[in-house]
């Protein structure tokens, strides 16, 4: 049996926990016997700016970067960020987007409006667009920081791993005290979407 391969692009705003989400995904792939690479940028970009992670898995991965137009799955933590990196998605790729608006400076200061047509424009990119309200799911658990793992749960429908792989990865990766809440967040996220 050939090992499947794929490219997952994560986009969000600094502070939303994209890094931890990608760590859990990577560990889940590694534990399941895949070669995996991921790349992201630390430092200045993390201060409330756009942040991205390139995650690639397969039998053997060379480049740590995904090419534009090649990502099989785009997980976006915010709608503008989904649009900003939509060109990374391959034709027919899937997109899981958190329907949250975080105002960039030009919007927060009233120089321009938050794009009101964001959802429509995303739909024009792919008919495999899945909007979820990860923030509401996290808030209903009284843990706003769980948005990232809720999204991992929702996106897991589009990845070739069993549910147990993610839970094993969270147990291995996270401090003991926050494993339970994150497993709960993952399941809540997974329940937001139907199997692909």
């Amino acid at each position, binding site marked *: 049996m050939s090992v499947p391969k794929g490219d997952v692009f994560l986009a969000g705003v600094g502070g939303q926990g994209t890094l931890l989400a990608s760590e859990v995904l990577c560990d889940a792939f590694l534990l399941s016997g895949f070669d*995996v690479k991921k790349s992201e940028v630390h430092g*200045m970009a993390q201060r409330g700016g756009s942040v991205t992670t390139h995650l690639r898995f397969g039998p053997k991965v060379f480049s*740590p970067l995904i090419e534009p137009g090649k990502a099989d799955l785009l997980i976006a933590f915010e709608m503008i960020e989904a649009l*900003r990196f939509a*060109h990374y998605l391959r034709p027919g790729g899937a997109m899981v987007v958190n329907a949250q608006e975080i105002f960039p*400076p030009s919007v927060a200061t009233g120089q321009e409006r938050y794009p009101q047509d964001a959802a429509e424009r995303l739909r024009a990119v792919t008919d495999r667009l899945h909007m979820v309200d990860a923030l509401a799911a996290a808030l209903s658990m009284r843990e706003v920081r769980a948005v990232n793992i809720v999204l991992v749960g929702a996106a897991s429908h589009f990845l070739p791993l069993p549910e147990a792989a993610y839970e094993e990865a969270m147990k291995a990766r996270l401090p003991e005290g926050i494993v339970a809440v994150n497993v709960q967040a993952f399941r809540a996220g997974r329940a937001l979407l139907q199997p692909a």
Partner: protein
Amino acid sequence: MSVLAKKEELRLLSGNEAVARGAFEAGVKVASAYPGTPSTEILENFVRYEGVYAEWAPNEKVAVEVAIGASMGGVRALAAMKHVGVNVAADPIFTVSYTGVRGGLVIVTADDPELHSSQNEQDNRHYAVAAKIPMLEPSDSFEAKEFTLLAFELSERFDTPVFLRTTTRISHAKGVVRLGEPSGPAFAPGFTPDPAKWVMLPLNAKRRHVVVEERTKALREFAETWDGNRIEWGDRSLGIITSGVSYEYVKEAFPDASVLKIGLAWPLPDRLFREFAAGVSRVVVVEELDPHLEIHVKALGIPAQGKELIPIVGELDPRIVRQAITGEAIPVRAPEAVPPRPPNLCPGCPHRGLFFALKKLKVTVTGDIGCSTLAALPPLGAMDTCICMGASIGNAHGMEKALGRDGAGKVVSVIGDSTFLHSGVTGLMNVVYNRGASTVILLDNDITAMTGAQQNPATGKTLHGEPTRRTDLPALCRALGVDHVYTVNPHDMKRTEAVLRREVARPEPSVIITKAPCALLPEHRRKKRPVYEVIADLCTGCKACSRLGCPAIEWVPFTPEEAVAAGKKATQKGMARISPLLCDGCNQCPPLCKFQAILEKKP
């Protein structure tokens, strides 16, 4: 690689984590560094291993000097820094090349093509050539660990410091690494006096230079036969010479091409280049930034293509490499036009209060490296220059001297606590010594913030987390001869502005220390803080609060109908709103509202 074989030995590590692991397995006893993206996590990870000593030095020069001392003392030692840090450390580096080492000595340079978090994108392979020091260049995390181990072996075998060069896509990319057992040098610590080797008087250094040239010849022979420099024969119609992360892009874009992978960026294997070129019909050199390999290959008389195809600016990726070599553009969807989201000072950042007050003075602000550089962006736009670590103070002094009387009271410099201790102290000493009148603003947020909260000499804690004597910043400034040193709370913008106005006008040097902790410090985040809200009925949409540029303050635009529906005049364009998820409770915005519309939110 068979990933399934032995799972327990395999870890997913970043390049930085892999270098730290390699240093541990190599038995490194002493490591010193100054934090700098993308190198910071090397020491943060290394310090977690049992039985090692690691420290944050005030700057990269000190870090290298500490590592040299440890090597002289007979243990393996590591110094790590970002690319521009090597500029600071270049002085000891060029001479330790002459002395050589006792315990293995490795200097990590983490370059930043694409300037993800840097002020330039210099290519530090030039340092290997200029300082005559061998340089290993891994292509991923797996090699980052293996090459770190090898670097220590080579260092002791050839009596030389060794550079290990990474780039952002090595340092901050994760890949699978095979763990090994720690070992170490086969000799005991101890310093053996040997003036001819360690005392670089001209007489001794002249003899050591001869040794260095012989060493380079021996290393060149090693480069010819070491399997880290290797030919992967494939389709002979295209031969690509490459190194570092570019190798991964080449393998992705041209899986069938013949490839010469260079793992030792200096010295280079002439015979191997010739053998490769003779076996392929077209040679292309694929490397990020400068044509380091290309110039060498062409100097051998080998016809090759390089920078006429491959960009010299920024980082590469498989698409750029494929397009450059085949000339074919693969169509992709054009990026959507959306509002930009540049990095910003955090909600509750004490720097915001200072820069908001400073902007009112309409002075020229020479800036420095750190989070505070973000104040150069709108809407604050309160910084006019930024060159390198510590430059702000010298820049302000020079500008004052250039402007003469016309410049009096019109230039101030702004520098963070860690940056001041890195290389601002000598600048301030110069202001006092040379009868300047600069106003220096020292932003003391009790941490090295931009790189992700590292301790420094003024925070009272070491890298190991032990309490230590704090550098007393006001006392240090006074000891340098500054008579006017004042500490203010930058969240109190009214008081801060008053002190700024007074000190800028003073015809003598003065230092204003703005003291408030970084909003991201765990101690601060654990504190119970108020959250503010905008009382909708009172907001007139004047935007006085928006001008702070705080990410928590959002503008809600109105159409005339919406304005009327909200009980406002039809001409009101919108109103402010504070995100309760983002508000840090710093209390900078409430005093800015003339209508008292910003109040503490009741639980």
